[in-house]
């Protein structure tokens, strides 16, 4: 099997008749089978995929195939698909099957994508290493002793290893971009309010956003354009028109900002800084204006992020109570023990930690000091970011402060792990679209993502820019 990097190549071969969807699916299934040790897939829909491949081959023959014909895709285990199990990698959803499909799933299927399985992730998308999963850690295909990143680790590893052409993830604080960076692929988080969250298992509702992983900027755009746009099931969606990347008018000279203090931070791996500076130089050589600016909220963002997301999570995860669906403790004997035992046994350590933290910051007596204050700080970060976008088109940074770390690396202090998100949370706090591009390599041989963030609803420009970068 050819190692395809973009859908247009697959479609060219499909049209030429050198391959068909059935053979394509078989090839992917074979690779999935050969790479089981990555622990990327938690469920493979081989039967479904083969059946759909047959149907789509017929459509191709009749010239009625959708835009995504030939796209074999995996979905993160927190995006629901009618009549299929979904668990958010948590024991608490044991035995649960969804009664409906996420809007994004519907839209992919309408355009004839083939969903080949669901992908491992951190439990309820909480984590940066994909080690907090009931299915166990996902391995990085580029170095199996290392993590694939999180929380969408399975989605990243599967695409990086060529087990599917693209995948869906969700990004609440970097859960698409960080694993994309660790595995050397493209990962995109659109503007908050751009892609329906209907069918995405909520972690933090005002931060969560579904987005694609792919092996080309082109495929990122294609998937984004299929999935984006209004949906009656999600009240928080924007009514703004979805512009295609191909329709974006990009000025020759873009104004690109980076946060000076972030690049000069001691926490940053020196090689990451070096690579970032190399990219800056390249951008300047391409005729763009790149300027370091002050951003006074660098140290504020991670705490703000963790206060607000855990608060929302504590409420969003209240429904997993052992009463109506999912896991119920065998030892439960009344209402209270059903709650206590089912939740104690059903949730993993990181999820419990965040529920406790979120419950605490919303408690009366602490609300103003934590949640209330964090909300104000979020507003300040948003205002400051809007100000930056009055003078700049894009904000640049490395996606992560270092490359993929070892799976056996032990963190005694969980807040240390939270600092993983230092570059990525900005886009979630502000709702801005942000993409990680595989533009650099560390001297340790591992890939390193470079992140570009645009103003809200400027996906078309951001994606068009991403495509020019890669072509250069």
């Amino acid at each position, binding site marked *: 099997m050819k190692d395809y990097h973009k859908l247009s190549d697959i479609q060219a071969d499909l049209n030429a008749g050198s391959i068909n969807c059935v053979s394509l699916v078989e090839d992917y299934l074979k690779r999935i089978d050969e790479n089981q040790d990555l622990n990327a897939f938690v469920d493979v829909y081989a039967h479904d995929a083969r059946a759909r491949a047959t149907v789509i081959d017929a459509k191709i023959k009749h010239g009625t195939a959708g835009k995504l014909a030939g796209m074999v895709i995996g979905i993160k285990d927190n995006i629901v698909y009618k009549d299929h199990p*979904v668990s958010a990698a948590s024991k608490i959803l044991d035995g*649960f099957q969804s009664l409906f499909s*996420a809007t994004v799933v519907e839209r992919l299927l309408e355009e004839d994508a083939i969903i080949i399985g669901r992908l491992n992730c951190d439990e309820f998308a909480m984590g940066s290493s994909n080690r907090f999963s009931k299915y166990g850690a996902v391995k990085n295909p580029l170095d199996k002793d290392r993590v694939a990143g999180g929380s969408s680790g399975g989605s990243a590893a599967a695409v990086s290893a060529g087990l599917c052409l693209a995948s869906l993830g969700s990004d609440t604080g970097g859960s698409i971009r960080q694993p994309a960076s660790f595995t050397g692929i493209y990962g995109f988080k659109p503007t908050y309010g751009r892609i329906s969250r209907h069918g995405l298992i909520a972690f933090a509702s005002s931060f969560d956003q579904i987005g694609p992983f792919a092996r080309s900027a082109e495929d990122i755009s294609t998937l984004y354009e299929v999935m984006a746009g209004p949906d009656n099931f999600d*009240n928080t969606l924007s009514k703004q028109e979805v512009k295609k990347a191909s329709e974006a008018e990009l000025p020759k000279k873009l104004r690109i900002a980076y946060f000076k203090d972030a690049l000069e931070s001691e926490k940053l791996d020196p090689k990451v800084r070096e690579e970032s500076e190399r990219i800056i130089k390249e951008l300047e050589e391409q005729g763009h204006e790149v300027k370091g600016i002050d951003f006074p909220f660098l140290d504020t963002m991670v705490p703000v992020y963790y206060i607000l997301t855990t608060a929302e999570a*504590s*409420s969003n995860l209240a*429904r997993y109570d052992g009463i109506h669906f999912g896991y119920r403790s065998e030892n439960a004997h009344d209402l209270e023990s059903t709650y206590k035992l089912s939740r104690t046994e059903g949730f993993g350590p990181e999820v419990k930690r965040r529920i406790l933290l979120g419950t605490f910051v*919303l408690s009366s007596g602490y609300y103003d000091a934590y949640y209330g204050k964090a909300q104000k700080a979020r507003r300040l970060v948003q205002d400051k970011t809007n100000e930056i976008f009055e003078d700049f088109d894009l904000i640049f940074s490395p996606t992560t402060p270092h490359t993929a770390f070892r799976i056996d690396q032990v963190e005694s202090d969980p807040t240390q792990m939270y600092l993983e998100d230092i570059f990525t949370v900005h886009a979630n706090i502000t709702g801005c679209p942000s993409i990680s591009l595989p533009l650099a390599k560390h001297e340790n041989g591992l890939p390193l993502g470079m992140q570009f963030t645009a103003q809200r609803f400027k996906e078309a420009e951001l994606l068009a820019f991403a495509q020019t970068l890669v072509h250069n």
Partner: protein
Amino acid sequence: MANTTVSPDIRAKYEPVIGIEIHVQLNSLSKAYSSDATEYGASPNTQISPITLGHPGTLPMFNEAVLESAVKLGIAVQATIREHNEFARKNYFYADLPKGYQITQDLTPICNGGFIEIKDAEGKPKKINLTRIHMEEDSGKSSHDIDPFHTLIDLNRAGVPLLEIVSEPEFRTGDEAYQYLTEMRRLVRYLEISDGNMEEGSLRCDVNISVRPVGQEKFGTKVEVKNLNSFRNVQKAIDYEINRQIALIEDGGTVVQQTFTFDAARGKTQLLRDKEDAHDYRYFNEPDLQPVEVVEEYVNSVKAGLPPLPKELFEKYRKLGLSEYDAALLTDSKEIALYYEAIIAHTNNYKAAANWMMGSIKSYLNEKAAHIKDFPLKAEQIAELIQLVDDSKVSNTAANGDLFKALLENPEKSAAELAEQMNLIQESNTDELQAWVNEALAKYPDKVEEYKAGKKGLTGLFMGEVMKLSRGKADPKLASKLVQETLEK
């Protein structure tokens, strides 16, 4: 148990302070945040979609009908309608709350202020001010008494829209609370936003009660009484609780912040839980719903579409010359008022129309245990009956009696036509009448003498005879005039 009999002297030393929270279940066809149906009495767990069930990945949708209902009520009670409305989550665990939180409004209720008018103990008008009205969703229903070993849960009710109406603590007696609830129920029914039915749970209320020595500014410790199932029980619970608290304080005790239910059979409040069990609801902004902006044009358009309100109709009827009593009865229910409105669209005899409503029509409805909407006659037909009487064509007795009865049996016929057929058209031909008068007087020559000697009360006897002779067809007004004229000759 404290002695709860309190002498009037001691009672007078204290001022009760009472506030009421009402939950009105809206009658929208679909739920507050999903398209599930809301029909009362459907088989358990049949009006439930993944959204109602709180399944993973579901999000609330916003039902605009809820907003409209809230704005209607806000306008009717003259509240201030908020422009920027946010939703909040109220977090608590319960088996009939599938999401583990209720979507409600916390800091930005749709309405603030407004009032309901009642009468105080002396009959003087009293305003009960409202603190707020906000939109929220109902929980499911837990039944603890159907299965001996399990609690059964019906989620049909989960997500049904509610308005919570919070009053200022301005009630002083159980009677005031009773009046307020009655008025609020009448209002939501007039507005057609709720059935206002306590038995079906579409109107529920909780009461906060405290007492303080007269003249003291600081409120006493309040207790809450929940799960009240009728307005009378609200009244009784309040009166009981006022006495209990006064007696307790008089005995040297202190009121503790607790939650009670009302045991209607024993006429007593009963402890439900102590304050230590109070929830911390951890309210915060509902991130799944965008704020709703209520613009002035929208409020105006709702205002323009409002049906007439009971207070407006009451004032109108007073101006038409009806007594306070009549006006109050006619406006008691919207359907009655609307029927009355329909009659007076066809007649100017407002008093006669009111008499019909509260006389023959009401008797008919009572007798048949029927609702005005099932009343077989059109308002025009009642107006026609009134006209026949006014024109002296049919006697009032006949109109309300045989003719009304016949018309009910033949609602397709006109009243005049039936009156003709039944030979009920009054004789107003003076010659024939004069003949009956002469015959009647001739029958009682000695009574005529007595009359002439000054016993004027005998007119009734002669009139009775005239009516008898004419078989009721004599126009009583004209006959009476002729009897007198003949006697005075």
